[in-house]
């Protein structure tokens, strides 16, 4: 049986983990580093840079460096590096491929199967983009796993009684809260909520603006230029100051020669108090507390029902985060464990379960967003068209099958249009459209007398099959969302992307061919072709 891996593809850092005798461990790079900074760049000689090397050139060459690509997953965003334009999937695939090579070089074996984690609150499009990234990198993606759920798999609950654990996961770019019941080997998610655009990156940006203000105060109103390089320096200085403020009450930011005015060079030198920083981010953190309340309500719980809170993600190192969570959930013990690693470790555990290794853990997860269709509905303002009728409500355990019966809305209606959406808004088109189809040639009947049953089948891989059946004559039609045939990326596109990224890696000092040669050398009876 091949080796399986779990990958935490993070906004700021990524990692790859595997199992040894059922125990997960993180695979380090040549230098012994466990985390791969999620940076991709091109050097001035057009050579691919991934991780540390790309991060190091960011302040000097932001136009040739990509960071925080996770925030663009599932969008049409594109970025140009060298002579090619890359989609978010492709940039993510470069990170994944780099992790894959790291693992193959340490384990001296080819690795193809992986579980990749995503924020629990990621939408369907974001999940599919992540899966595509995995495929471009050459993986068979066994499962797209929710990050807080992965983290929960790592906690060893030895208590006899089941424990209700709230996982608060605040990372570089995303925030999730999940309420999980852990009973022996069974980990069951009761509710998840979150924000796909809230994390350490936002705190950096707040502090970056604050530093710019401090600079102009110190230099008679001179503004920090808005060019990419200066802003990148300021952003990196902000990130370093943020990290320092997790351990110290004060920090000094020094960026010499930030701005040159005529012959004079202007320096940034500012002392930042932890309290200044806390005031900047407090409004953002308030949102996370509201998310806790909604998750609790969805799980039909109050704070008293929680046995503990576990903090996950690098941004939970900020002391204010812990203080706010503690005071919001009085009496519930708050702890943290390997905030950077536990998501990846949990992903490796789940990969082991799926590959049939002797890992005894059972996972029951939910879909964080409601799935439904547009329908005419009775509202306090009368009958309204294009309302969102949820068929699979949020926080339903998956896989699941649900049906609902609808009626035609006018006399002799010949067809119904089934428009499928994902989201929580009462107005259908305010949600994310997933596709639509029609059932036609309906028998002529008075309005309201014809019944159409709409059946939703949602599987663990996020494939949603919608079938609509007219109940009289049995006319029906169906739609599969995210099926291999309807995916947004054709297999031709996929192969092209894979080839383009492979060629980038081949030009790297440590190339794929070297690795393959190494691997061939390992097996005794391999022959030259």
């Amino acid at each position, binding site marked *: 049986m091949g080796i399986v891996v779990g990958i935490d593809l993070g906004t700021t850092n990524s990692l790859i983990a595997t199992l040894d005798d059922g125990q997960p461990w993180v695979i380090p790079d040549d230098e012994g580093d466990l985390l791969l900074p999620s940076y991709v760049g091109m050097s001035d000689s057009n050579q691919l840079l991934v991780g540390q090397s790309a991060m190091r050139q960011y302040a000097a060459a932001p136009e040739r460096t990509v960071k925080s690509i996770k925030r663009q997953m599932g969008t049409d965003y594109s970025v140009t590096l060298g002579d090619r334009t890359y989609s978010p999937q492709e940039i993510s695939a470069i990170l994944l491929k780099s992790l894959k090579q790291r693992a193959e070089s340490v384990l001296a074996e080819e690795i193809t199967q992986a579980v990749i984690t995503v924020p629990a609150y990621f939408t369907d499009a974001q999940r599919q983009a992540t899966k595509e990234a995995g495929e471009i990198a050459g993986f068979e993606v066994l499962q797209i796993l929710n990050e807080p759920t992965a983290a929960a798999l790592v906690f060893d609950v030895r208590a006899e009684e089941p424990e209700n654990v709230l996982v608060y996961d605040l990372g570089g770019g995303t925030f999730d809260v999940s309420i999980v019941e852990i*009973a022996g080997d069974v980990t069951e998610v009761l509710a998840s909520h979150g924000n796909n655009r809230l994390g350490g990156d936002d705190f950096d940006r707040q502090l970056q603006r604050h530093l710019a203000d401090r600079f102009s105060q110190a230099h008679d109103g001179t503004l920090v230029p808005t060019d990419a390089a200066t802003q990148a320096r300021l952003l990196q200085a902000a990130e370093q100051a943020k990290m320092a403020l997790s351990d110290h009450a004060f920090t000094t930011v020094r960026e010499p020669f930030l701005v040159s005015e005529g012959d004079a060079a202007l320096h940034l030198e500012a002392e930042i108090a932890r309290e200044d920083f806390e005031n900047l981010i407090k409004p953002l953190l308030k949102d996370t507390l509201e998310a806790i309340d909604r998750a609790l309500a969805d799980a039909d719980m109050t704070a008293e029902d929680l046995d503990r809170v576990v903090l996950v993600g690098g941004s939970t190192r900020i002391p204010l985060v812990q203080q706010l969570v503690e005071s919001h959930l009085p009496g519930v013990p708050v702890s943290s464990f390997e905030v950077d690693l536990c998501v990846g470790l949990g992903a490796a555990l789940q990969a082991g*379960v*799926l590959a049939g290794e002797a890992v005894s853990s059972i*996972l029951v997860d939910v879909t964080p967003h409601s799935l439904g269709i547009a329908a005419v509905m009775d509202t306090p303002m009368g009958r309204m068209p294009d309302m969102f009728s949820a068929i699979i409500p949020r926080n339903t*355990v998956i*896989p699941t099958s649900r049906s609902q019966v609808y009626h035609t809305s006018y006399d002799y209606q010949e067809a119904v249009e089934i428009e499928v959406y994902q989201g929580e808004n009462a107005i259908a088109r305010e949600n994310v459209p997933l596709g639509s189809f029609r059932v036609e040639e309906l028998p002529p009947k008075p309005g309201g007398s014809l019944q159409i049953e709409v059946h939703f089948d949602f599987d663990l891989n996020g494939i949603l099959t919608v079938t609509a059946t007219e109940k009289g004559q049995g006319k029906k039609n169906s739609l599969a969302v995210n099926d291999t045939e309807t995916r947004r990326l054709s297999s031709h596109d996929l192969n092209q992307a894979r080839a383009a990224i492979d060629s980038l890696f081949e030009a790297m000092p440590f190339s794929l061919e070297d690795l393959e040669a190494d691997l061939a050398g390992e097996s005794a009876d391999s022959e030259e072709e």
Partner: protein
Amino acid sequence: MQAHLQVHYDRLGISPPATPSDIKAAYHTQLKAFPAHSHPIEFKAIRAAYEALRKAPKADENFFDVRPVEAKIDQSVVKQLRQQVSATVEVTLEDLILLTF
């Protein structure tokens, strides 16, 4: 009331009356035998059974226990009842689908 619940008890391999912790333990045992990733159809049936029995009125409540007389209608109970009824309807639909397999 109990008759249509029988299929759910059977699915979890227990018989009424069962306490909530019996139901949960039986559910967990079935999950281990039929994990979602390898047995999606069985998993859905197990989950439906668990949700139905969890919401069902407790079978072990003693009718002859002396209780204080309640004169007014508790709105939350009405709401709960309404939810239970609709849950049961939902479940029978699921059953029908499953039985046709």
